[in-house]
């Protein structure tokens, strides 16, 4: 199978699912993983408008950075009832990622 330079897919796991993501740099790879996470529970079609929320991890190893932003998205969903639809992240010094995410209210997404 030929892979695109960046992308993601969901693999089966009996308890839930496994996310596989790839990209040319850490920020792209993490963004793909986040998109996969959202696809796992929501279907979103061209939202009319979005607002921006900051999203960043601290410095750290790949696993630490990935877990940190995945948890941040779930936290934001629970506390602010918004779902991210696009991510704009850059690599930062020390292995972290930083940027923002475009979000819409949960009520505007189709939860699956």
């Amino acid at each position, binding site marked *: 199978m030929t892979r695109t330079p960046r992308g993601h897919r969901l693999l089966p796991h*009996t*308890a*839930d699912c496994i996310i596989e993501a790839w990209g040319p740099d850490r920020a792209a790879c993490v963004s793909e993983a986040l998109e996969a996470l959202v696809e796992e529970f929501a279907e979103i079609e061209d939202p009319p408008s979005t607002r921006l929320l900051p999203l960043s991890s601290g410095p750290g190893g790949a696993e630490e950075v990935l877990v940190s932003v995945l*948890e941040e998205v*779930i936290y934001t969903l629970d*506390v602010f009832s918004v779902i991210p639809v696009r991510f704009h992240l850059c690599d930062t010094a020390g292995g972290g990622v930083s940027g923002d995410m475009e979000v819409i209210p*949960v009520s505007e997404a189709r*939860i699956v």
Partner: protein
Amino acid sequence: MRAHPLLEPVPETADRFRLDPSGAMRVPGIVFASESLLASFEDETLTQVANVATLPGIVEASYAMPDAHWGYGFPIGGVAATDVERNGVISPGGVGFDISCGVRLLVAPLTTDEIRGRLPAVMDALSAMVPRGLGRGGVWHLSSERELEAVLRDGAVAAVHAGLGDASDLESCEDGGRMAGADPAQVSERARQRGLAQVGSLGAGNHFLEVQSVEHVFDEEIAAELGLQVSGVCVMIHCGSRGLGHQICSDHVRTMLGAMPRYGLAVPDPQLACAPVRSPEGEAYLGAMAAAANYGRANRQALSAAVRRAFEQVLGTGNLQLAYDVSHNIAKLEHHAVGDERRLLCVHRKGATLALPPGHEDLPARFATTGQPVLVPGSMGTASHVMVGVEGGGAFSSTCHGAGRSMSRHAASRRVRGSELRRDLAAAGIEVRAESDRGLAEEAPLAYKDVDEVVAICERAGLARRVARLRPLGVVKG
């Protein structure tokens, strides 16, 4: 054929198989299953059973119930006990992310015939009154941090004090509805923020609320004690501690991963992160876990109030009696015989249910002679079961917690169309209230093991015995 010969369990009896210790395993793995059910266990599940057997301080065996399947770190359907006074560890992964996920059964003063014609209206009312899905929203709108503090400290007791139920409900709850040892100071600000607006909500995934009919009674006497009789109506609620429990698990796994080198601990999977029970990190987790357990119990108590309101509104009676409420994702400090000694153990049950025998000192007075009720929800559209603990029950008085998944959510949604499943359930006379077809398909019965076989194995293996079989009339899907 297993990927590795060490994952080939050897039979001890027709319903009990052993994984002999190898590598870093300190104790054997014991799987309760029939030969045919065992064949359906994934290699990953058995690997996790073996991995759990490496935990410091583990005693007797790493157990897997018949409903066990591949989880994160621990298998779901796993039981593991560590010796508290001999450097035994506690692992948040042995409880799971949904701390105190559990089941509650309410019994209505109605027969199936009496409710049949009004069932669509009952399900509509329940659908309207029971918050579910992702994010915020709950039956109980906490007005302050102080109220959340009461929930974390006092569980279902706090909910009853707030008017969500009757004090008599607490007599039919595990631990009287309040797990001792809760330490709200160990619950992070983030966990509190996530929990503040979700008390009294089902959440998503496999959580549900079902209106059920008692289809068959196996033990008339115990069923009568629980208020169950053939053709009677009951309501089963399956949910947990929502985002608060998830955050607590994440917070404490991270803390323990950082602390493990200090204690010289190493585990084969990061999700088995652990710390000695008698350590600052272990005690902090126990305090936070008990707080989350109380949140889960308050959650189910608050939902009971919504159920009673819906029945009152549609049927003119909200007098539903609580049969029992029990958690199946929890760690508890319990005394058990290990060899010739009585030891204090930290018993992790992740997707497994405590099943105390008749006469046990921790039983509510009501169940002193019957044994503790065990509530076993089936998959959507199939039967659920009520069991009770038995004398000499193995695995530290534990049994199954449900049917147990045999297929991933994605595989299920590829095999079944939600719209067809909805039609099939309707054709079987089951009223479904679900937000999405994909979510429905992910919980299709074919994605689960046969719950009747699971409970029969538990009974044959001497873990618990059957009291009643319940079939669904209507489902509100989380």
